[in-house]
C-alpha cells in the first residue's frame, strides 16, 4: 500500500469542505477523486501534499518526496525553466525519455520556446507525460481538462499503462464521463 488516508476533514471559515474521508491507494492502482466544482478535490490533494493543514484525521504515505510527481490544476504554477527542453529535462532521467515526451506531446519544434508560451493543453500534456516517465506515485489535479478528444484518449491510455506497469495515480475530475476507467472512486 502506498497511501492510507484515515478520516481526514477540512473546514475553511467554518464551512465543511469535506469530512471523514478515508481511502487507500495500493500499488498499481488508479484512483479517481470525483466531485463537482468546489467540492474540495484540490483542497484534499493539497492536504496530502502538506500544502495546507487538515483539521482532523491522518494519512500515511509510504514513499519519499522524490518518488512523488504532481501536476496541479493550473500547470503554469509548475513552470521553473526558461525553455520547454529544459523543463522536460528537469523532470525525466535521460534524453531518450525527454524526446519521447516531446514527440507524444507534439512539442518537437517547440523545444527552445518558453513553457509559458505553450497553450493550456500543451502545458498539461508536457507535465503529465514527463512525470509519467519517472515517478512512482502521481497526483494529477484535473489531468483531462483543456484537452481535445484525441489527446484525452492518449492520456487515458498512458495512465492505464502506467498503473499497470509502473506505479499508482490519484487523479481528480468533475466530469462523470471521466471516472469509468479508474479502479477506485472517491466521491466528494
Amino acid at each position: 500500500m502506498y497511501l492510507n488516508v484515515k478520516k481526514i476533514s477540512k473546514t475553511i471559515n467554518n464551512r465543511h469542505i469535506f469530512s471523514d474521508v478515508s481511502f487507500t491507494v495500493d500499488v498499481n492502482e488508479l484512483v479517481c477523486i470525483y466531485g463537482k466544482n468546489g467540492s474540495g478535490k484540490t483542497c484534499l490533494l493539497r492536504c496530502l501534499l502538506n500544502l495546507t493543514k487538515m483539521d482532523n484525521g491522518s494519512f500515511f504515505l509510504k514513499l519519499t518526496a522524490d518518488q512523488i510527481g504532481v501536476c496541479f490544476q493550473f500547470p503554469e504554477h509548475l513552470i521553473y525553466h526558461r525553455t520547454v527542453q529544459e523543463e522536460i529535462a528537469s523532470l525525466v532521467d535521460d534524453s531518450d525519455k525527454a524526446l519521447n515526451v516531446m514527440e507524444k506531446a507534439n512539442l518537437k519544434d517547440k523545444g527552445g520556446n518558453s513553457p509559458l508560451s505553450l497553450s493550456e493543453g500543451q502545458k498539461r500534456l508536457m507535465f503529465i507525460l514527463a512525470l509519467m516517465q519517472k515517478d512512482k506515485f502521481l497526483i494529477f489535479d484535473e489531468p483531462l481538462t483543456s484537452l481535445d478528444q484525441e489527446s484525452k484518449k492518449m492520456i487515458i491510455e498512458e495512465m492505464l499503462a502506467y498503473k499497470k506497469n509502473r506505479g499508482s495515480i490519484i487523479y481528480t475530475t468533475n466530469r462523470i464521463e471521466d471516472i469509468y476507467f479508474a479502479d477506485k472512486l472517491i466521491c466528494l
Partner: protein
Amino acid sequence: MNKENRGKVNPPFFLTLDTVNYVKNHQSIITELSGIKSFYKLCLIKGRVGCGKTTLLKMIAGIYTPSSGDLSLTRNNRECLKYFVHANPEFNFVTGNIADELQIAGLSQEKFVDYANRDVSELSGGELKKLSILIALESDREVLLIDEPFEMLDDTEMDAVYELIKSVSEKKGIIVATHENILDHIAENVIFL
C-alpha cells in the same frame, strides 16, 4: 426581440480573414488563413491542442497583431467593440479581490452577492472560471470572445454556462474557442484550424 426580427433589425457580424499569418520565434502558428465568416449570434473556433485557437481569438480581440494579412470583425462596416475572456481564469483578474474586480468591470455588486467579501484566491478552479464568464456576459461590449468557456466546469455548471451563452447570444455576438462539442448545434459558423 425574437430571432426573426433581430435578423432584420441588426445586420450580422462579419469576421473577415485575409491571408492572415502569425509567426512567433520563426515558427508559423497561423498560416494563410482566409475567409469570411458571418454570424448573428455564435461562431466557434475549433481544433486540436496547440493548433492556434487562442492565438486567432487574441488577434480578433486586437491583443495580437497578425504578422501579415488583415483581419476584422465588423457590423455595419464598423469594427466592433470586443470583450476577451482568457482560458486560464486566473488571467482574468487583476486585483485579487472580487468586489474590486466587479467595480473595475463597472458591474453592480448586487448581481454577485454570492461572491461578497471573497478573494480570487479563495475560489476553486471551476468557481473562478464560472465567475470570469458571468462577468463577461454582463459586459456592454457588442461581441464577447471567450476562450474555452467550459474548461474546469463540472457537468452541471457546463450545462448552466451553455444556457447562459445561448441566451446572451440573442443580444450580443459571441465567438468561442473550444474543444467541447456542446455548442456545435447552435453555432452559425465554425472556423476549423
